């Protein structure tokens, strides 16, 4: 295997929304060297690939960042870090301005004011949002971008990070990267659970199937503290195409109705998890399928919707043109498989207000960072900015440290083993399907209506651990297949944490997202606690933390 050593001041793992913005932030403030390693190509990688429909987090006139904190706290039923939400909310509008300067089209009224949908959401044409960010990054002289590099592990000793390992999926080169500080921005994790459409369209998921949770897994292995993996996210989406429903529900005012034509959304409530819960419950009660009531909308609205979906979820427009438009029929909706995504719910690295993780020199932002839900695009950018500033400050204090040869040798040997293993009984694809089936059946997937009990979690734990052992024997024919093996192993690592967290929160707090059948009600005690965890000597140790300690910032006291 060809091995190359690289050096930089700041390594950014993942050139998505938050990672690109961290690079822009650092370049504006210093001439420090920045290296972005991206497993795909920053032009269209990550969540923003197809485009987005709106900027979901913005503070309109008459509102304050505090209002946003309260909204997010209510939506997550209290399990949030208010300090993180506040520092993010304070930056939402300035990052939006920057996006506009980069060329993002934002709808304005005759007075030049942004047009909002509700009080915290503004209307845009988000089709080219990722190419705009990528072009800005590519112009920066001190930022190098390496595309198609899959980062697999961090180099950590004595709880300090000083580099990372990865390989080029097309070049076949193994990289040892030394850095003074690292920003992890790999997004959340899809593909842990059996998907809605497990066949040919298995990757027609809401969250990008290529965000496999590498950043979480690297952190877990490195002993970083993680938070709220039990707070899974389940999206309410258009059936089959998994296209967003917000444009129809909040934008066009379509109500949630069951097959009897009854509007059911008011019965269950309108938070994100309640919308999912209502739909799942109506289906279980025999009143499915459920729909968004679009029948009879005006022809103008219909034509606008066709275009709006082309700008973010083109399969929905194709679907309408193929099998009937929203004017003629209601749009069927359902919940997706569960995802772990810190930009919608609160799962991820346990970070302080500077987005520093519990590992020295390691910063996290965007969907990989925990404690701060409802980030969306602008919140991910805001966190990229904070992490960029913090990492830059940190590099001023630190010298480079060399990666010890034995440590590098261990990681190289692991990759070489997969490339030289004989063809075994199982393929990576088979083990991935097995993992998804285990999670679906025993850890609250679609198959059980997102519910589970402790006995089932025990079975899930045992089987996931067995799959982990089996994955040691997998064989990769090339570096792309090697990436598949690492992705599977990342997901297995995350599954273990998800199971441990689901077991530790002995209550049912977000009924739409998960139902703990041994503890079916909310428990006041858990309303005051974060469920955190850290890997210690190969065991997941659960740490319960008091929420009140993360409520107000010093300057607000």
């Amino acid at each position, binding site marked *: 295997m060809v091995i190359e050593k690289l050096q930089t001041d700041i390594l950014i793992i993942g050139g998505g929304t938050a990672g690109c913005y961290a690079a822009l932030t650092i370049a504006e403030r210093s001439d420090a060297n920045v290296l972005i390693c991206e497993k795909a190509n920053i032009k269209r990688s990550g969540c923003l690939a197809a485009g987005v429909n709106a900027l979901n987090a913005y503070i309109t006139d008459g509102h304050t960042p505090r209002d946003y904190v309260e909204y997010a706290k209510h939506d997550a039923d209290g399990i949030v870090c208010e300090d993180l939400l506040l520092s993010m909310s304070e930056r939402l509008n300035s990052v939006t301005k920057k996006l506009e300067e980069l060329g993002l089209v934002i709808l304005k009224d005759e007075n030049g004011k942004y047009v909002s949908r509700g009080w915290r959401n503004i209307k845009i044409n988000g089709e080219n949002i990722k190419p705009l960010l990528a072009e800005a990054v590519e112009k920066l002289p001190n930022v190098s971008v390496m595309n198609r590099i899959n980062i697999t592990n961090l180099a950590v000793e004595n709880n300090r990070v000083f580099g990372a390992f990865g390989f080029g999926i097309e070049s076949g080169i193994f990289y040892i990267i030394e850095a003074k500080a690292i920003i992890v921005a790999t997004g959340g994790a899809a593909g842990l659970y059996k998907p809605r459409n497990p066949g040919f369209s298995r990757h027609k998921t809401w969250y990008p*199937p290529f965000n496999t949770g590498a950043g979480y897994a690297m952190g877990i292995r490195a002993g970083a503290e993680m938070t709220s993996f039990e707070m899974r996210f389940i999206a309410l989406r258009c059936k089959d*195409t998994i296209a967003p429903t917000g444009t129809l529900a909040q934008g066009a005012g379509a109500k949630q109705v069951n097959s009897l034509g009854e509007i059911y959304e008011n019965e269950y409530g309108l938070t994100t998890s309640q919308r999912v819960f209502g739909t799942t419950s109506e289906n279980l009660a025999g009143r499915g399928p459920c729909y968004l009531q679009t029948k009879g909308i005006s022809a103008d609205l219909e034509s*606008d919707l066709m*275009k709006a979906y082309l700008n973010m979820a083109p*399969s929905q*427009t194709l679907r309408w043109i193929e099998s009937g438009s929203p004017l003629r029929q209601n749009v069927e909706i359902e919940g997706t498989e569960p995802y772990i995504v810190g930009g919608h719910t609160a799962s991820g690295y346990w970070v302080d207000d500077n987005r520093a993780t519990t590992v020295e020199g390691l910063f996290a932002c965007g969907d990989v960072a925990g404690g701060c839900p409802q980030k969306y695009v602008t919140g991910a950018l805001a966190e990229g900015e904070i992490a960029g500033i913090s990492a830059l400050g940190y590099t001023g204090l630190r010298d480079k440290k060399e990666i010890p040869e034995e440590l590098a040798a261990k990681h190289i040997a692991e990759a070489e083993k997969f490339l030289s293993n004989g063809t075994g009984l199982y393929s990576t694809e088979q083990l991935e399907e097995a993992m998804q089936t285990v999670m679906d059946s025993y850890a609250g997937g679609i198959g059980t209506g997102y519910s589970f009990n402790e006995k089932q979690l025990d079975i899930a734990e045992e089987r996931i651990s067995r799959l982990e052992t089996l994955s040691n024997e997998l064989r990769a024919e090339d570096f792309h297949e090697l990436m598949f093996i690492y992705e599977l192993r990342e997901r297995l690592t995350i599954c273990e944490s998800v199971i441990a967290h689901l077991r530790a929160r002995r209550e049912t707090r977000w009924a739409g997202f998960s139902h703990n059948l041994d503890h079916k009600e909310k428990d006041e005690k858990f309303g005051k606690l974060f469920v955190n965890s850290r890997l210690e000597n190969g065991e997941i140790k659960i740490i319960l933390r008091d929420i009140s300690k993360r409520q107000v910032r010093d300057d607000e006291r």
Partner: protein
Amino acid sequence: MSVEIDREKCVGCRRCHDVCPGSLIKIGSDGKAFIKYPKDCWGCTSCVKECPAHAVRFFLGADIGGMGSVLHIEKNGELLDWVIERYDGENIVVSVDPKESNKY
């Protein structure tokens, strides 16, 4: 969810390969593109938008209700024309102005 690539039309510019967020498109020894992992496609249409030869076409898998229509994109001055060749032979074009915002 997937795309198909017409190798007759492909001019080997590699642009679809460069943008795919899943690295699913590879270039064959003849210099032309092919999708190596069709079941792994997310359906983001990034590759469809890039192709200057209209060789990349997008369709819905039968398991999610696909009926055989295909979609490609043509640049029409400042506009993007999304061309849907319906399964029944009808062609439908939806023109989108990239400078126009979503209204909902």
